[in-house]
């Protein structure tokens, strides 16, 4: 929701980043305020996943220009774990499998690490078990997933639910969902979207990175941005996603000049 009394959570200005000497992000500007849901759309290779990873602090990318303020602090000087503790969360496109570590052990470790850094109490295994089982209901997840190794042998949908479960546990201020809809059937998509909608509130914000409009039927964005060649070339409301769906990304090229008007 767009709210007059909202505060700025994320402010990105002229962000440039490269990997192995190749520039991928070529000057991104984006402001996200509390209560807002933003969708970043674009073709493969447009730089949208890179943008998500750069915000989360992936060390493979070199920042070559611009600035990112997260709740008034310089995000770029923080290592990834401190970004997470400060309230930034990235739901991975391809969540990592960790054989040998029980999911519940991992979830509790992440939860307790973040909680203690925020000056709150840790939960012991029994307390955590009650807590996590409640959160799993939100995502219609089978509690058996607690005892299995992290993401090991999970289907695509199960992995994405597990990502959103982590988001529910860590209560981030800014959630970035990287292609969370990919590999999901329609039922799983609805469940995951429902989870995200329930977590979203007026004090936090969400960025959805997606290739397709389909996800936006279930998580309705306040803003839609189109990325191309490392820049946001067009910004509009939720109707822009529908426009893209019917006209395709080629239409963007023809209308880039009017981007400002639509925004």
């Amino acid at each position, binding site marked *: 929701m767009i709210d007059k009394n909202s505060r700025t959570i994320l402010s990105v200005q002229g962000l440039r980043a490269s990997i192995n000497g190749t520039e991928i992000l070529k000057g991104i500007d984006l402001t996200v305020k509390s209560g807002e849901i933003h969708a970043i759309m674009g073709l493969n290779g447009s730089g949208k996943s890179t943008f998500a990873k750069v915000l*989360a602090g992936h060390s493979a990318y070199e920042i070559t220009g611009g600035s990112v303020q997260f709740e008034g602090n310089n995000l770029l000087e923080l290592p990834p*774990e401190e970004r*997470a503790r400060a309230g930034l969360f990235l739901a991975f496109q391809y969540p990592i499998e*960790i*054989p*040998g570590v029980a999911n519940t052990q991992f979830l509790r*470790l*992440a939860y307790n690490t973040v909680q203690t*850094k925020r000056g709150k109490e840790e939960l012991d295994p029994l307390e955590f078990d009650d807590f996590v089982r409640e959160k799993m209901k939100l995502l219609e997840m089978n509690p058996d997933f607690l005892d299995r190794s992290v993401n090991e042998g999970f289907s695509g949908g199960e992995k994405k639910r597990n990502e959103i479960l982590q988001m529910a546990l860590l209560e981030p201020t800014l959630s970035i969902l990287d292609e969370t809809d990919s590999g999901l059937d329609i039922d799983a998509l609805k469940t995951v979207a429902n989870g995200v909608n329930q977590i979203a509130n007026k004090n936090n914000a969400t960025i959805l990175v997606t290739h397709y409009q389909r996800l936006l039927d279930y998580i309705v964005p306040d803003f839609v941005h189109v990325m191309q060649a490392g820049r946001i070339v067009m910004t509009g409301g939720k109707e822009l996603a529908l426009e893209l769906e019917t006209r395709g990304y080629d239409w963007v090229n023809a209308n880039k000049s009017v981007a400002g008007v639509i925004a």
Partner: protein
Amino acid sequence: MNDLASTDYLGCLLKSWPIKSTESLSWLNQLRAQAIDRISTQKLPTRRDEEWRFTDISPIAHLPYQPSQPECNLHAHDIEHLSLKEAKNRLVFVDGHYSSNLSTIFDSTALVIGNLPEFVATHASTLESHLGQHVQFDNNVFAALNTAFLRDGALIIVPKNIAIVEPIHLLFIATQKEVTSYPRCLLIGEAGSDVTLVEDYVALQQATYITNSVTEISLAANAHAKHIRIQRESAQAFHLANCAVSLAHASNYQSTSISLGSQISRYNLNVRLTDAAAECVVDGLTLISDRQLADTHTCIDHLKPNGTSRQHHKCIVDDAAHAVFNGKIIVHPHAQQTNSSQSSRNLLLSKLAQVDTKPQLEIFADDVKCAHGATVGQLDQEEIFYLESRGLSAKAARNLLTYAFGAEIISRIPVTSLRQQLEQAVLNQTQSN
């Protein structure tokens, strides 16, 4: 190493414990005599031997440790911490010698369990057809030495169609320094039987000694056995072990071997699928540091059709330690429809750490499915980033991933208390500060 030293070493060992001529059973004396005969034709292996090219065993040539004498001063409370609460049957061997005081035999009616010499008269024909018949000592000087010094040993015979639910714990404790002990185990699973065996090598103090063990396992048709082997010897010890397994029709053998201790250790595991539709799972974890050397040589031999083997071996190597894995899989011409997979995954935690991994597939049948793969490396950056993005520090992320790498194998051990002990051991060894 020169041949003179080798000859001296073996000669010195043989002189040390002459065979008692009072032994009543000629077949057993014959077996020992045969072994001694083989020793006289062999030398200590050197790195010129293909089977030993990564492992220099020459340090032991300078340590002609005499066989340990039976002098057990241990009490039950000294080894309390080593007990597995799930195990009702426990055989304890101190420096290779059976200790009836420390052992607990619960099921003497349901199965045959105890020290070998107690059964040589009553089970002569069974023993004669198995003892020394699965492990080949013609080209294996350590197995020959063990057989020459064969005396005490663990014997377990699980009768037909009997399933023993609780694990059987074989505990081999080293207490004396500068001796050689010769542990021996024989497990016979009769048709349709089921058993879980824990073979556990421990030390009560940091000392230099040699353990030379031989284990033989024979599973009849449809028999199942889970075999968990833990080598947690003193960090100064030398551990040389041979295990041979024979699998009959549709039998199932699952092995998990964990190597943590010893200065130099070598484990040879040979599994022969002698009849159709036999299955085996051979998992291993080596976790070493400092200047330890741990060598695992396995051979899975598919002789008949429709066999299945799955092998997953992992090494975590820190400091200047050196791990060796040689995994041979042979599929004979008649072993059609064999399904075999092998993976060797290795994690190096320091610049000086070293691993030699060698998958060796010899396939002579044309209708088979065989997959293998080996990796050597450091922790994956994407995995570290994933954990960091959940708030874990880089160090905590590395520690967790290293632990997980080992815990994946440990988690397959079906004995909870043992699994917890080992998880703690892995945790202690993988967590840097």
